[in-house]
């Protein structure tokens, strides 16, 4: 089993499952409501041309979040 990695460390096209969200509780709710939960499969689609934010695919749609938040979402990459 792969060790958990920050979402922001992955290369485009990588898929994995969220294992931990370290964003402070009071900033977490919108991300959760958008469907990024522990156990949710995610694909990293691309980084913006200037390196930040990142685009992910979750539950069949595309979402962008800043690297600052993506650093705090830990994924176990599918092997």
């Amino acid at each position, binding site marked *: 089993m792969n060790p958990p990695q920050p979402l922001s460390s992955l290369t485009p096209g990588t898929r994995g499952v969220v294992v931990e969200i370290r964003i402070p509780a009071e*900033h977490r*709710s919108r991300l959760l409501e958008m469907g990024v*939960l522990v156990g949710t499969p995610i694909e990293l689609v691309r980084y913006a041309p200037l390196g930040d934010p990142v*685009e992910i695919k979750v*539950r069949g749609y595309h979402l*962008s979040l800043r690297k600052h938040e993506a650093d705090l979402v830990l994924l176990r990459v599918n092997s």
Partner: protein
Amino acid sequence: MAIASKAVSPLRVVLTGNPNCGKTTLFNALTGLRARVGNYAGVTVERKEGTIAGLASQRPVRLLDLPGTYSLSPQSPDEQIARDVLFLQLPEVPEPDLVLVVIDASNLQRNLYYATQVIELGHPTWVVLNMVDVARENGLELNGPRLSAALGVAVFPLVASTGEGLPALRTALAHEAHRAGPPPEPRSFTELSATFGKEAETIESLLETELPERKRLAMAEAVLLLSDDRVLNTHAGRYPKAIVDAIVAARNRLETAGVDWRSAAIEARYARAAAIQMAVTTEISPPGETLSDRLDRVLTHRVWGLLIFVLIMGLMFQSLFTFAELPKSWIETGVNALSNWVESSLPPGDFTSLLSSGIIQGVGSVITFLPQICFLFLFLSILEDTGYMARAAFLMDRLMSRVGLHGKSFIPMLSSFACAIPGLMATRTIDSPKDRLVTMLIAPLMSCSARLPVYTVLIAACIPSRRLFGIFGLPGLTLLGMYLLGIVSALGMAWVFKRTLLRGEPSPMILELPPYKRPAPLVLIRHMWERSRLFLRRAGTVILAINILLWFLVSYPKISESPATESVPQTNQMRQSFAGRAGRFIEPVLIPLGFDWKIGIGIIASFAAREVFVSTLSVVYNVENEKSGSPSVANLANTLKAEKWPDGRPVYTPLTGVTLMVFYVFALQCVSTVAVMRRESDSWKWALFQLAYMTGLAWVLAFLTYQLGRLLGWS
């Protein structure tokens, strides 16, 4: 018959759903573009309402289009409105007879998350399963009847953009207007843990006794109150203290029990949404790359994406700056012609002067903004309706976040190069109120098109046309310098405001990148016109009033008739007027900047609009100009060059010119901007703060420029 149908109260239908679910397309398809657009009281959230056209029903059906929202725990003013309407907490919107939840069939899980929240409220609710064609293209076939069984409400699969499946919904609406169906059974889509469920029930029974008028909503409200950590910060005042205390206590107990009250309900609901999606979806073909994915490969590409972005922004800027200039000049010519005609055909006197210089010119200065506003709104509508707006924010977020702003602040700032008014209005797309306010505060620092005539005249009068390094002309470089100064200070002030006045938690940018869509031209034009009309009505009245006031200040008190030459009285009148006296009154403040009282008059008069500075100077210096035409820049520049202080030094030295331009970069010399800021921020406080900080900055920086220049030996 007509009287009888008038007496029937309409069936009130509320339309709600996630952003980008095609809700507005459905609204337009049902109401046939006959919507009334306004604002909700006290906020700049658009309120769209319309009657459903051509229904086979005597009772009219009124449709209210709520702003798109991701959840009932609001994060923006738009979402707050949607929540308040559904929770019957907005007095101006009566209780709905029917709620239509629109869900995007191609993005089912997240849309079901919201739809189930709404169904739980217990209003009579139907689900519109929109964009089944897109789902089909993505290889997914959805089973409507099965979805209806899972949700316990009627489901209407359709394609709002083509009208496929729409007749069934219209028939059902006509039927519902005739005889409403039975009230729905209470339902819950969140299997809560025993601990969480017990706490929710406690809050529920408290809500039922404390707020009996919303009894039906109590369970749903209890779960939301427990899970939404923002609600107690922002809306604690809406609930009796007993309830607030109970919520805090319940959360503490849950934390001790090791239950995450923030995520428990969200996780339970998503689990259910995923299960429903599984049960109703059949994969008919393997998911491939969609057209949207292919477009994104180019449009967010490291090189091509940025290049195309620059091209699109260039085109937009160009259209605001150049294309809008033509209709703008027609309007200006027309207004001048009308005002001259009035002057020549009515007997001279106060009334004629008020009519021609006050009212007609005042109305004129409002409608001259119209072409730019229309172009801007057209562009914004295209960017929004195609889905490119989200990509623009995605591309620019890195740059803007350096100064604490949001990717979405980029377009308002760019628009402000043309005119701060459309710029301020474009900030409506920014969700976070603080980010929006910061963007509004700094947008007018971008050099707008009205500063250009001021720069042009001053450069012609003061800046020697030398060449630097053989290629760069000094005048051109000066102009570029002023634009750059505006940009740099806008970003700098944003940085300052984000760290001082409007400090707040950095709002995480969680932005959906919706699939690209083809916009409908008729809807775009309609949208542009609705928003422009709102501008005319709301800002126009204030702008007109202040223009009349300024006319008064320049025209009174009248000097006594004197047997002078034709043109001198105008200059004397200016000197005598309240504005002229004010100019001399403020001279002591202007001397440290190297300005005399005549420049002071120009500054005061140009508070109506910056370009008025040029025409005021021609009046003050009595520059001959062709009757009714605008004063020629060259004539004015030559007169300015010859202007001397009493001791014989020239007034308009290069240093004065630069100082005056620096002053105009910063000073908020524009009543229209103040009026629009007042509207858009919904407070005089921020409008006056903006006026004060920009004027203060203008004086200080002009002072520094002038005094430093003198120290360095420039004159």
